[in-house]
């Protein structure tokens, strides 16, 4: 790591030299007047250091002669991400979108242009006025021709943090002024659990504070990471991460207490703790949990009093567990047959879970699989049988791996942010599905393919709308959506695709109109530090002037609103700094009411640029302690007020793929599955050196690529069988797609599984051709695109089987990191 880091820093310097050249060329080229004028007006610092923030943490940016030249972590960050240098490169890399661009065929023929040539990088540069006129013309045409259901604005993705330049809210703010639109619900991270958990626990679980690390360090005796790699994934946060989980992880390691990692891969977390590695076949976790539960029952190791006082439905689940209802007792031996684990290990896990104060910390990969609703539901049943929910350091947690869940909460105030302007809509129209309709986000391709078709979702049935246009901001669906080839074809149903971004992602390359947005570092904003801890409020000060012709999301949408005759409704007469001051003042008012010291806005902005808050009561938070203390006064949000092992509400829905209690069912395909064609499971973990697909277009790639491609971990035995050596370019393929990747031969992954981390940029050798070979390694070329079940309709990004072979053909060049022709 340290070696590659040094390499990276050197690469950074050469990039800077390149950039200076590029700007110099631009200055004498056709953009010179606007660039110079913009620079003069903005009066950004020429030399110095600016504190700002990002999804990777707060950092200081060093500026020399108006250029950003170095990045160092904020000194308050206990565990800075090694990805910080990639952020700086995202501003200047060849993948930066410089100018407004329109696809050549679209510029000529408009919405009648052949959609099949999308993705071929055939763009023409236009002026901002031309681009925005065209966008507005299309918005109006689609609204007039097809009504509000014609526009899909369910734009999703990891937009940059910042309470003002929240591009997705700003886009919907504009759309709400335009008329109606089709929206989306849910997300790609927790699609299944965020729907099933409210039935089971009465709340989302996945985005909620965990029993805090100091309590875990003091009380937990056995820490189990079940499909979670917190050392890797806590690098990022939805706001500016505080990295508060890392001191907790470190303290737990130093305590010397036992850690078990249940995962097909020996993760960084497993290595960090020197943990016991348990590797069941992927997607068989429910069977393993049932085997553990059966052992607890058979050996009378379960907590009957807890089940009676705090849960309902164990009596209905038990006949299934014992096999009374289906003739199959869910014994450890039965679970061993499905999962490939030793039956004695499963029994031993049960005994150790029961004997110790055990925290079952699960990641989200488990539920991002076909039938994913069952996984965390069964984990809750297991934790209920153990009876430690609500005790310090016991129970379960679904967010220890995300944004430093368990980082103790501070007593500070909360910043408001820009809204989607819903209140500006007359009446309560938005109450009926944001104007026109809402679809479960991950069914977007199904919707495109099947307008008018009925779909089930969480007890309701509705029809897919017929959408004709989309406007995507702050996201990269050509990375996060499954079954890329199906998607490429379905995307052709759109007459018009607008993408606003700062990177030439595959999504931007498959657009008709591309608008260049500023990065967070070219504008002013404000944000909280610490998703769960809310530890500080940070001034996200502008580091440099906008690069090339990039404009702020706020300004772009304000200009569109102006063209729609709604300028004032959009801006409310306020400019960037007015909004930021207003958000800060709202927090200041709360602080004053709570007697918390906080400087006035000007002092905050002009001096330190950060205000930190004390952690007091937050240090001792135990999740569900209140429910455990008095389940009648602090009931859960379920029908019974208790944990629902059996859900009558789900029973009423009558879904064949989501019964009323956790159940083992065969997923559509899996390693060793009865009808599965391919021999290897593809593990698609969250990246270590990216945020999903973000920073893939930067020099930080040098840290991990193998033969210039996304790495593919393969077990030594599987590699030997196929004649694959470390460093070879391999082709990973199934009936849905094929990708190239660089082989990493290792015993750190179980036999029968390969790992290609999600988020590698899609780089088709023949763009637009179904089944095209992907030259870089986008794992979602291989995954299935189906709902987890009729209940949640979440995505199945961890359901994929494939085969791997050494690639011996002519190697296609990786092109997706180059600036598109003419751009």
């Amino acid at each position, binding site marked *: 790591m340290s070696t590659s880091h040094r390499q990276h820093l050197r690469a950074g310097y050469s990039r800077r030299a390149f950039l200076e050249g590029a700007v110099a060329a631009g200055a004498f080229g056709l953009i010179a007047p606007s660039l110079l004028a913009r620079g003069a007006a903005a009066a950004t610092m020429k030399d110095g250091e600016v504190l700002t923030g990002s999804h990777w943490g707060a950092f200081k940016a060093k500026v020399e002669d108006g250029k950003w030249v170095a990045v160092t972590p904020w000194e308050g960050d206990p565990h800075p991400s090694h990805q910080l240098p990639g952020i700086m490169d995202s501003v200047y890399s060849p993948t930066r979108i410089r100018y407004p661009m329109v696809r050549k065929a679209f510029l000529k023929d408009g919405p009648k242009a052949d959609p099949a040539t999308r993705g071929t990088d055939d763009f023409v540069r236009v002026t901002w006025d031309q681009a925005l006129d065209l966008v507005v013309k299309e918005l109006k045409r689609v609204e007039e021709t097809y009504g509000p259901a014609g526009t899909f604005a369910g734009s999703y993705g990891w937009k940059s943090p910042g309470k003002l330049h929240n591009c997705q*809210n700003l886009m919907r703010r504009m759309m709400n002024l335009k008329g109606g639109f089709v929206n989306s619900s849910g997300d790609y991270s927790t699609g299944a659990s965020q729907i099933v958990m409210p*039935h089971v626990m009465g709340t989302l679980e996945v*985005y909620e504070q965990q029993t805090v690390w100091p309590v875990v360090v003091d009380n937990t005796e056995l820490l189990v990471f079940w499909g979670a790699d917190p050392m890797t994934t806590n690098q990022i946060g939805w706001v500016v991460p505080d990295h508060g989980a890392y001191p907790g992880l470190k303290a737990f390691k130093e305590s010397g207490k036992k850690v078990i990692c249940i995962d097909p891969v020996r993760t960084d977390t497993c290595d960090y703790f020197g943990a016991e590695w348990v590797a069941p076949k992927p997607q068989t976790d429910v069977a393993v949990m049932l085997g553990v539960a059966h052992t607890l029952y058979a050996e009378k190791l379960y907590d009957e009093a807890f089940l009676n006082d705090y849960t309902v439905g164990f009596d209905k689940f038990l006949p299934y567990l014992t096999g009374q209802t289906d003739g199959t007792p869910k014994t450890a031996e039965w679970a061993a047959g499905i999962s490939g684990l030793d039956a004695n290990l499963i029994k031993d896990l049960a005994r150790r879970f029961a004997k110790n104060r055990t925290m079952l910390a699960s990641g989200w990969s488990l539920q991002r699989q076909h039938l994913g609703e069952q996984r965390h539901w069964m984990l809750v049943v297991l934790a209920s049988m153990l009876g430690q929910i609500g005790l310090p350091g016991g129970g379960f947690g679904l967010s220890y791996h995300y944004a430093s869940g368990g980082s103790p909460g501070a007593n500070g105030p909360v910043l408001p942010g820009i809204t989607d302007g*819903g209140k500006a809509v007359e009446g309560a129209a938005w109450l009926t*599905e944001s104007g026109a309709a809402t679809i479960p986000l991950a069914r977007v391709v199904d919707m495109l393919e099947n307008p008018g078709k009925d779909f089930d979702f969480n007890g309701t049935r509705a029809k897919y709308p017929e959408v004709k246009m989309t406007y995507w901001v702050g996201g990269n669906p050509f990375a996060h959506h499954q079954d890329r080839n199906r998607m490429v074809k379905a995307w052709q149903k759109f007459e018009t695709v607008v993408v606003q971004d700062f990177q030439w992602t595959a999504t931007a390359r498959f657009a008709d109109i591309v608008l260049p947005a500023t990065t967070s570092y070219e504008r002013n904003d404000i944000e909280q530090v610490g998703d769960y801890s809310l530890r500080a409020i940070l001034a996200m000060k502008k580091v440099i002037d906008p690069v090339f012709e990039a404009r702020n999301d706020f300004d772009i949408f304000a200009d569109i609103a102006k063209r729609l005759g709604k300028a004032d409704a959009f801006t409310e007469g306020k400019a960037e700094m007015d909004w930021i001051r207003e958000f800060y003042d709202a927090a200041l008012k709360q602080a004053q009411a709570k007697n918390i010291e906080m400087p006035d806005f000007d002092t905050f902005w002009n001096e330190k640029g950060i205000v930190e808050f004390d952690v007091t009561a937050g240090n001792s938070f135990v999740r569900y302690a209140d429910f455990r203390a008095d389940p009648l006064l602090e009931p859960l949000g379920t029908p019974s007020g208790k944990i629902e092992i059996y859900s009558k509400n789900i029973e009423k829905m009558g879904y064949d793929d989501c019964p009323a209690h956790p159940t083992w069912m065969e997923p559509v395909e899996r390693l060793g599955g009865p009808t599965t064609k391919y021999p290897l499971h593809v593990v698609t973990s969250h990246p270590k050196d990216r945020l999903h697909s973000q920073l893939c277009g930067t020099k930080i790639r040098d840290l991990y690529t193998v033969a210039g491609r996304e790495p593919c971990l393969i077990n030594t035995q599987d590699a030997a069988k196929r004649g694959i050596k470390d460093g070879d370019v391999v082709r990973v393929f199934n009936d849905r797609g094929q990708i190239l990747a660089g082989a990493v031969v290792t015993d750190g992954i179980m036999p029968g599984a390969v790992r290609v981390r999600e988020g590698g940029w899609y780089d088709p050798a023949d763009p637009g051709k179904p089944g095209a070979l992907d030259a870089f390694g986008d794992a979602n070329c291989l995954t299935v695109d189906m709902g987890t079940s009729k209940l949640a309709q979440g995505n199945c990004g961890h359901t994929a089987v494939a085969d791997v072979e050494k690639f011996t053909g002519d190697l296609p060049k990786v092109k997706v990191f180059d600036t598109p022709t003419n751009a």
Partner: protein
Amino acid sequence: MFRWLLVLLLSALLGSAPARADAPMERGFATASRPLLADPADAKSRLGQVFVATPVAVLERRGGLARVRVEGWHQDGADRLLYALQGKRIRRAILKKDSTGILTRLDSLTDPATGQLWHRVAFEAWTDARHLAPAADPLWEEAEMLFSTRCTSCHERRIPHKYTANQWVGLLKVMGPRTGLPKDKQQLILKFLQFRAKDTRDLPAGD
């Protein structure tokens, strides 16, 4: 609203209504969560608390206080917490442990969804008259404004009827504090959402 009137009518017929049957019943809605007192002259005679947006019948006014009648449902064995509907945890009032003796039981039923036994009860107490409004609409308007401005900046706007009344309790418990609003305003947003939830929006019983 209809059910509330019906309940009052029934109560009157059953003879449990404290007000004279020929006097028009004055209705009020709590504009804030306020203490409930046994004795209007003794601020320490606290019985519990009425929650924001709870409907009451105003029986008598004395100075800044009003004697009110509150009705609600409680789960069998949990008589301190009164809810608007049986099985739906939309809070109307909470009583202190030793104050539940003031409850009059009106009727009981077994909730078909959970098999739990629920009781409809009523009580009278004194509360702050300055925090009683004659209509609930301004409260709901405020709630809608707060929801649309404070619950959309971190995540996608949630649609009230995508969740049940009880699920909203769990969601607001976590998300409420993240609005930065005072507790009572969080409670108001919660009630607004609960009466527009998947399992309540078709009921005629909205407070």
